[in-house]
């Protein structure tokens, strides 16, 4: 009995230590975001004191110099728009190709599956030139691009769920005079809700953080958060204002952490479900 209590405490102490290790990189960025830019290189580990503390100066500089607020809202519009489009349209597609059994639909399903293992670099150049020609290189234009790239995993997950649903309820609704569109939105979609939440979370995490696709299509005219941070670093050629840069990193991380702390249950469940079914 005594022995297991001791081993409990050792495990607890170990986990506590590891938590500190996990938090440390973020802690380091946060303390340095409050220090003058001259005091970051050379003494990065020291806590800000009266000589080095600059208040929110770095934050003001970061916001003004790199259009962080604009980037934030752009990223938000792109993420929300794409996630809504993906959840609504791919669930419709998945229901249709699962219920209407034809050779063609089966092929479509396998093509969606196949797309999941193809790395982005394979289509990077050709996709970019086609999208630019079609005028998809804008904040709203990138939404159908995300729909195309997100459809593989999303159709796969929705199809998996639809296969487990009995079709009698849908048939009853149609016999009662509901058309397929009404049947889908009033009968099927409510049942898909758990999967819809998972699909929404997985896609939101990917799109919010994505870098290369918005960098290639939107570039410096319509920066998203990841692009703004990368361009700040690239454009500085080594002569970076470290204080302002630290503040930008903190600003990019804070919304995600707040969102995470509020929706943690759904996020972890979504990730686990997504992995187990994916």
């Amino acid at each position, binding site marked *: 009995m005594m022995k297991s209590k001791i081993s*409990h405490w050792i*495990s*607890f102490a170990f*986990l506590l230590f590891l*938590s500190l290790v996990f938090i440390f*990189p*973020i802690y*380091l*960025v946060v303390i*340095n975001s409050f220090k003058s830019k001259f005091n970051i290189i*050379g003494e*990065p580990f020291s806590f800000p004191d009266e000589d080095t503390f600059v208040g929110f100066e770095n934050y003001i500089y970061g916001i003004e110099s790199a259009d962080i607020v604009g980037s934030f809202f752009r990223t938000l519009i792109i993420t929300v728009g794409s996630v809504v489009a993906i959840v609504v*349209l791919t669930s*419709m*597609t998945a229901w249709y*190709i699962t*219920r209407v059994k034809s050779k063609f639909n089966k092929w479509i399903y396998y*093509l*969606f599956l196949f797309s999941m*293992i*193809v*790395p*982005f*670099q*394979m*289509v990077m*150049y*050709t*996709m970019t*030139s*086609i*999208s630019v020609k079609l005028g998809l290189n804008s904040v709203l234009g990138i939404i*159908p691009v995300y729909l*195309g*790239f997100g459809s*593989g995993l999303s159709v796969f997950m929705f199809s998996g769920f639809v296969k487990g649903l009995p*079709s009698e309820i849908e*048939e009853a609704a149609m016999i009662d005079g509901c058309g*397929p*569109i009404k049947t889908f939105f009033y009968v099927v979609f409510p049942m898909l809700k758990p999967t819809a939440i998972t699909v929404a979370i997985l896609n939101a*995490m990917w799109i*919010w953080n*994505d870098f*290369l696709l918005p960098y290639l299509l939107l570039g410096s005219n319509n920066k998203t958060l990841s692009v703004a*941070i*990368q361009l700040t670093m690239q454009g500085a050629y080594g002569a970076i204002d470290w204080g302002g*840069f*630290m503040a930008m*990193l903190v600003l990019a991380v804070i919304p*995600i*952490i707040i*969102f*995470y*702390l509020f929706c*943690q249950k759904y996020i*972890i469940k979504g*990730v*686990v479900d997504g*992995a*187990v079914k994916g």
Partner: protein
Amino acid sequence: MEKNMKKYFPVFVLPTFVAFTVVFLIPFVLGIYLSFTEFTTVESATWVGLENYIKAFTQDENFKNALWFTIKFTFVSVITINVISFFLALLLTKALKGTNFFRTVFFMPNLIGGIVLGYIWNLLINSILGVFGFDITYDADFGFWGLVFLLNWQLIGYMMVIYIAGLQNIPKELNEAAMIDGASPFSVLKNITVPMVMPAVTICLFLTLTNSFKLFDQNLALTGGAPARETSMLALDIYNTFYGRIGWQGVGQAKAVVFFLIVAIIAFVQLKITGRKEVEQ
């Protein structure tokens, strides 16, 4: 019902399928074609046969170096991430105090984007190396281990929650019966726990393998390939060939096809091997 639905194909399938075709299917097929041509724009392609593939393997030291670096990196990351996250999952399913807090902390890095993660670790590693007068671009080994630590930090929590879900699915009676029969904790782990979580192992190996192999954002932000392209992984090397070397777009596309084939083979082989070891439930 199927008859009723048939004419609704344009409503239900077409929007998704058109987007999918335009940004994936056509670019994919066009990409394979372009890998056999020399081009500067999509319209200006001239057929050169296998020349791009030969060039990629014979005239491009960066590509071979990136391939080797990526394989080493993937090997080390997959092992460390899975061992550590499995061990943490075991600890966190033992009903200790503060389990929820620990899970929250360990999972958190997974939500931060690759570019931001890369720069957070850039600060941390350069701060530590700075004490000794180095920085991360001083030696390719620093970049290698920096990337390993970074990806561990990012993915351990993610894999941990999948292993926890797997561990929680094991019926308690199974462990108790083994204990009563006098099995040691190690033999319970080896003969019951590991075989029972094989589905989770399959998933976690697949996710860590593909994530490590395809790493781009973190690589770009942490080292950018420095020193002298020595820490470029495959994705970054392909990107640099496309956008950094005029006249080499065809070679870039050929490298991308090779990259795709390797990822497809890894995914296929790994799922076959670990899939076979799963216990029928």
